[in-house]
């Protein structure tokens, strides 16, 4: 009986891990901000590389 309860609790915990917790600062605020920063970082690096290739930025 106790074993059964423990298994049910474990299953519920695993199912919950499939979804993001609601009201979480990490997922509601931090993750979108980090995604925007990553996209900006990628864009800036790509601009610099293209700038170097097109010789707008001097190749050191």
């Amino acid at each position, binding site marked *: 009986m106790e074993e059964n309860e423990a298994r049910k609790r474990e*299953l519920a915990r*695993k*199912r919950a*891990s*499939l*979804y*993001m*917790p609601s009201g979480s600062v990490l*997922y509601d605020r931090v*993750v*979108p901000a*980090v*995604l925007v920063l*990553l*996209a900006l*970082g*990628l864009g800036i*690096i*790509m601009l*610099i*590389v*293209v700038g*170097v*290739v097109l010789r707008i*930025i001097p*190749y*050191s």
Partner: protein
Amino acid sequence: MKITSLLPFITTAITFVFVFLVLQRYTRRRGIYLLVWGIGLILYGLGTFAEAYSTLEWNPTIFRLWYICGAMLTAAWLGQGTIYLLVRRKVGAFRLADILGGALLVLSLVAIAVMFATPLNAAAFQTTKPLSDQYREIMLSTAPRAFTPIFNIYGTLGLVGGAIYSSYIFWRKRVLPNRVLGNILIALGGLSPALGGTLSRLGTTEFLYLSELVGAVVMFTGFILATSQVPAPQTAGVELAQTT
């Protein structure tokens, strides 16, 4: 030996453990993206191995291996793995990802041939300087360098852009938080050597080895997190099954 010279040795060791895990997953799940990621990581490991070796002595084949793997092909093959995972569109009878993969393979072989045909100036080599700081004096032809930005732009957009996109999709659906965070780490890990390489092009070469080590560790952590076991979804639909 300077501490920075040790970094490529550590990066190589970490990368080959990463290769083993990715290819082990490929043998179980058979996704072509895992095989292509495995190839990309082998190239990453060979590139950092060549850097490590070059802190000890000169070898022209090792130098060519460094330029081919470390400077030209790694990002492109890692990015191609992500493109195999994410791009399902067909062009006529062929999958777009297969067409891009075929083009990458052909271009890679051409770039390798060009690199092996390039004469080298061994007298310009010094074990005390990073390869990224001296390769322009060693290579007596600029032809191989014409390929580098093409491979790196394609690969970085594929790998980092793909990881950001995957993370955003899971975040928008509010599912699989491990994959949201895992893909963020993969994007960060992919950006790290891209930033190191860009700084190196602008004349700041001392961060390249560190950026490669950080990239390997962070991507490895992201991969472990993104592929950590969660039970098969029962209510969230088919899309969830179609993930990393």
